[in-house]
């Protein structure tokens, strides 16, 4: 019974981890864009 529940829990956990790392990559690429924008403003 408890073993089954671990499998059920794995479903939302994996979905969340997928969304979480996707958000982190978006965050990182945004930061890179912001940095390059800043560089262009200085020129």
């Amino acid at each position, binding site marked *: 019974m408890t073993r089954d529940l671990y499998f059920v*829990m794995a479903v939302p956990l994996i979905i*969340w981890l997928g969304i*979480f790392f996707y958000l982190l990559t978006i*965050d990182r690429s*945004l930061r890179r*864009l912001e940095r390059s924008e800043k560089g262009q403003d200085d020129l």
Partner: protein
Amino acid sequence: MTTAQTQPPPTASPPPSAPEPPAGIQGAAWKWGVGLLMCYVIYGAFFIARNAVGFVGDSARIIFFHVPCAVLSSIAYFVAAAYAGLYLFSSHPEKRFNLELDAKSAAAMELGFLFCILATITGSLFAGMQWGTFWNWDPREISIVGMLLLYAAYLVLRSAGGEQPDKRARLTTVYILITLIPTVFLVWVVPRIQALQSLHPTSVLANPKNTSAAYKEVLYPSFLAFILLFVWLFQLRFRLYKLGAKDRSR
């Protein structure tokens, strides 16, 4: 497992005073905190909380995901309204309003719509399990449909606002402030009308005595996790807007 182990300290929340350039790992630390906290909530929802009295099977565990979404969907409206009000009272040196405030208000509205949809779907699943039908026009269900319509109408209005950012901002901020009246009505009044006899267990949650310590151990971190997630998404949306705005001015 105790909350103290997995829950990051509250000080890990967004540092507003952090300078922008060196925000490499420090800036991302609280985001990792959100990730871990949500993992803890998912674990706790299954293995810390137990079946609750008066709920069919495991249906009570929805509380850790549905309630924060529902609360956020109304908080978002008030955040958007606060920025809308600030926008209308803002003034720039050259007699123009501060469009960044309008962008923040729009970001809150978009996220509010998202969480409103999530709360509706999860609530409907709960209704299907607890009351035997996925939709039974419970007062809470009536009010969330109203919220969905208010959000959707906002997004339609905004996309129809066209190419003039100032005009669009004025139109949409005024819309938010006017619809704040029905929003207050939908969030606090409609679900409490006695004649409609809500089945929704709001009153169960309103009294802290009704939730066990194990539930609180998961519920409070879940609220924190969802609120921080909202802040993160909000920041991402706003930064995206700022990059776009720079593009247009060039």
